[in-house]
């Protein structure tokens, strides 16, 4: 009897352990897909459904939605993108590079139903997953092109198309598309900006790369708003063609816009004070160009 118990004990304890871990981590992988560019996972924990790239390397969530309260934006960087409205409060033509789960375009479409929204995403698999699991839908005013953002922007420039709100959000995952960080690319972006357009780039806040990138944006746009929040690893670069407006204007705009953003959980009133023009990077770093853009190597250093 004792012997039997001794044999059973490890087995029982493993069973017990499994039961405990099962109940603690109720995260369920509801979809897995290998695309040409990355591994895509959709994971649901309770009501929260998240899109994760390259899960084995411990990447952060790309996008999350609350399936029962889809309007509310969960990530601070997604919310932070709305700070662009402080410069251009009523966008009519919006370009978003990088779809992710599609929460950002959905929110903009909801907020500005008459604005035309073009989304560029290089990975067809991401588009499929956004549609199937994250409630993303194209409609008369919002469409997705499966294309490289550089190609899209260059062509738009040649066709003379202009946007008044541009969001660059193509830097998810651990591979950096180097050709979307260069002085030449930003020059092409400038070409497709209307006079009163705003550019919002969700980029990097750490590593040597922060310096190179800041220097590059400064070279192309001059002064820009550097937007960081204390508890977020993201930083957004927000800029326009004209000189930046004084902070007083931003606060006034925040006050008038904040109520309409409440349902998305965007704390717009907190943002004006966080928009900084202070140079906190090493200005001696080299500008990134099509000739010199070892972004992935710099990121590692």
């Amino acid at each position, binding site marked *: 009897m004792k012997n039997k118990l001794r044999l059973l004990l490890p087995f029982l304890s493993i069973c017990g352990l499994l039961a405990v871990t099962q109940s603690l981590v109720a995260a369920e992988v509801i979809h897995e897909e290998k695309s*040409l*560019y990355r591994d895509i996972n959709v994971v649901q924990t309770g009501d929260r459904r998240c899109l994760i790239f390259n899960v084995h390397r411990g990447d952060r969530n790309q996008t999350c939605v609350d399936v029962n309260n889809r309007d509310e934006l969960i990530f601070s960087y997604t919310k932070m993108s709305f700070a662009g409205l402080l410069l251009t409060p009523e966008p009519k033509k919006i370009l978003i590079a990088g779809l992710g789960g599609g929460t950002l375009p959905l929110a903009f479409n909801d907020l500005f139903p008459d604005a035309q929204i073009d989304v560029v995403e*290089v990975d067809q698999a991401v588009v499929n997953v956004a549609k199937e699991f994250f409630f993303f839908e194209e409609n008369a005013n919002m469409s997705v092109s499966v*294309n*490289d*953002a*550089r*190609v899209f922007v*260059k*062509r738009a420039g*040649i066709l003379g198309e202009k946007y008044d709100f541009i969001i660059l959000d193509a830097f998810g995952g651990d591979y950096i*598309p*180097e*050709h979307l960080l*260069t002085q*030449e*690319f930003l020059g092409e972006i400038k070409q497709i900006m209307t006079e009163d357009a705003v550019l919002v780039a969700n980029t990097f806040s750490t590593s040597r790369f922060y310096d190179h990138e800041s220097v590059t944006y400064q070279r192309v746009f001059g002064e820009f708003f550097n937007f960081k929040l204390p508890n977020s690893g993201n930083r957004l670069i927000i800029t326009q063609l004209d000189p930046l407006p004084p902070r007083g204007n931003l606060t006034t705009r925040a006050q008038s816009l904040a109520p309409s953003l409440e349902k998305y959980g965007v704390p717009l009133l907190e943002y004006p004070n966080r928009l900084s023009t202070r140079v906190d990077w090493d200005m001696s770093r080299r500008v990134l*160009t*099509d*000739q*010199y*853009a*070892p972004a992935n*190597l*710099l990121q590692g250093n």
Partner: protein
Amino acid sequence: MTVEMLGARIMAPYFGGSISVWGSLITVFMLALSVGYLVGGRLSTRNPNPKTFALFFIGAAIFSIPIIVFADAIMRPIFLTIEDPRYGSLLASVFLYFIPTSILGMISPYSVRLMVDSHEHSGHMAGLLFFVSTIGSAGGTLATSFYFVLWFDVNQILWGAVAVLLLAGSVILLINYLLQNSATDTRVSGYEKQT
């Protein structure tokens, strides 16, 4: 390989960084090399000599220069006429890389012919040659993607490759000249292994 690694970089501003751009690039390099092997092998049957051999290096160097000087002039019209970046990058790769790469492909079979004295040694020499050239390719790939892009502009690296090819061609010509002067009967045997 150095040129191939940079090839994607050169095309990214026009055709993006998607996997199809890499596909185009590698396809064109493979096609160009295969044509080069064929032509190089054929040329080696007609009076093989070090001068022709040196001309391969010099020719490859000269035909690499358009990659540096005319890249935009070549890619712009292609970008404007072909909307699909897959075919755009394929065509651009042909125009930019086909000629220099096929000339480089001629070097291997030709050098086998120059280095082989007898049938018995032909397998050995060919093996040695593939070894050297493939090690060289590995080195070029690693050095370019790990370090050169961090230290230099793309065009600086390409000029470096052009200079190395020109140097190799000149060294071969020089050695050939010296050997011809020192001996009346110059039976050239394997002295040059650069690729």
